[in-house]
């Protein structure tokens, strides 16, 4: 019985050479074998049990998706939903490098399309829309209206060029310059005032909330988290962008059926109501 179990573990660990460790000391070799076998057995067992549903979602979706996740868990007892919130560009790189995920929800089409081209993502319908606003610190704000953004000496924080909100920011600035209302060199002057390119939208918000930056470009949906510390400057609708959020199931997912149900929840009535509650689809 004992020998049989030992043999099984040895096979499990797949390291036949471990037997040779016995030469160094029976206790040492045996101990290592047992340890490795034990650890591997545990992880094996772990995967067979309640495997969580892994959702990689853009940082701006944090609050809305957490609530959706709870709703999903309530409807599917025994299932837990695990979120990874970060800049969409970072999540995409992680997925490309082989990170284990079931669902990807991004803040723009670019990253989703890139993954689709590589065959890593299936169909990805747009499930939410967002828009940009400019935020300033609540007290002692040096930026009172949008024209102030171009004033020399103003410190502006944006997200990096590959972060969705960073790209949207450039698009908004282009539109504002093209409108002729803010001056021909508006975009250049505003970009000269940029002091930092953050890796996700929440970091932009944080720097403005701390009072370190005079202004930052974030999503309309981000305001709730720092309401008391910031003031909002709306961007006129025709100069604003429509941020489109697609969601899809990753082809490598080992829980495709469950993932598809999650996507259905997000695109369905309940999910959409939650998203509207958090400021999307305005």
């Amino acid at each position: 019985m004992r020998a049989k179990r030992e043999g099984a573990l040895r096979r499990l660990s797949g390291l036949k050479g471990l037997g040779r460790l016995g030469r160094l000391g029976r206790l040492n070799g045996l101990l290592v074998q047992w340890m490795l076998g034990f650890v591997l057995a545990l992880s094996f067992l772990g995967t067979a049990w309640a495997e969580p549903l892994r959702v990689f979602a853009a940082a701006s979706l944090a609050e809305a998706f957490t609530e959706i996740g709870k709703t999903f868990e309530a409807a599917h007892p025994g299932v837990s939903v695990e979120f990874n919130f970060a800049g969409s560009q970072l999540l995409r790189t992680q997925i490309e490098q082989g990170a284990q995920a079931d669902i990807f929800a991004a803040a723009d089409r670019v990253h989703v399309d890139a993954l689709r081209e590589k065959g890593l993502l299936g169909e990805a319908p747009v499930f939410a829309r967002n828009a940009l606003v400019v935020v300033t610190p609540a007290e002692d704000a040096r930026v009172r209206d949008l024209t102030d953004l171009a004033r020399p000496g103003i410190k502006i924080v944006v997200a990096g060029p590959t972060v969705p909100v960073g790209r949207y920011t450039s698009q908004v600035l282009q539109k504002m310059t093209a409108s002729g209302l803010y001056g021909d060199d508006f975009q250049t002057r505003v970009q000269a005032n940029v002091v930092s390119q953050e890796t996700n939208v929440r970091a932009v918000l944080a720097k403005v909330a701390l009072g370190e930056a005079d202004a930052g470009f974030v999503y309309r949906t981000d305001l709730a988290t720092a309401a008391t510390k910031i003031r909002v400057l709306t961007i006129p609708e025709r100069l604003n962008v429509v941020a489109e959020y697609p969601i899809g199931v990753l082809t490598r997912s080992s829980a495709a059926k469950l993932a598809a149900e999650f996507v259905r929840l997000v695109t369905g009535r309940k999910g959409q109501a939650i998203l509207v509650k958090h400021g999307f689809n305005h």
Partner: protein
Amino acid sequence: MGHPAARRGGIRPFGILSILLPLYVAVPLITLLLVTTPRSLVEQLASDMALRALVLTLETTVVATVLCVVLGTPLAYVLSRHDFRGRDLVDTLIDLPITIPPVVAGVALLLAFGRRGLLGRYLDLAGVQIPFTTLAVVMAQVFIASPFYVKAARAGFDSVDATLEKVAGTLGASPWRVFWTVSVPLARPALIAGTVLAWARSLSEFGATMMFAGNLPGRTQTLTLAVMSAMESNLETAVAISVLSLVLALAALLVAKRLAATRSLWI
């Protein structure tokens, strides 16, 4: 200086366990080198982003290291030679930056020296703003890297027999002269090792820099921040910059070992 195990029996009694760690460290680093080609490396490194990051990093880390040495050496000497009330407290304080997460350090620096910060607000009134400047990069690096130098320097001075200093005094040397002609030469290997450690740590500094200085190419985007940003757009560039950082670190370590080894055989 040899370990007993090296003189007899090789890697017994631990066998395979003793080489697991070196293997674990070597594999990712070697992978980094294997993933790129020399041509791609040169191409990527010649890019604007990489060059600016390299220049900025060299400038800031050198300044930061010099500051660590200039400010840290007297401190290390005093901690080593004088037993004063609160010495343990100061010692622990200096070690703190090692134990707190760098991002937390960044937040703390921001809260202290930011525009609305405890001290920063007065600087702001005087028209001086530190966050988002190259100075902020240096400050973050000094904050994070200084304990490495101070610890090493202190250990170095501790290892110098105080009797030698006293005797030097009886021979007519002033305390300043004793320091330069006896304490420093004898502590030199540790001082050099500490300097290199501090430089290496400031090279790899990320969290505090990101938080306190921000991320802007040419002004605050160091090599590590550049890797982060490049990762999001161009993996090849990220790899190239990573390899460059690796090479810099390796060069530093080799130089340090050389310098330290030639003088460590006096005693």
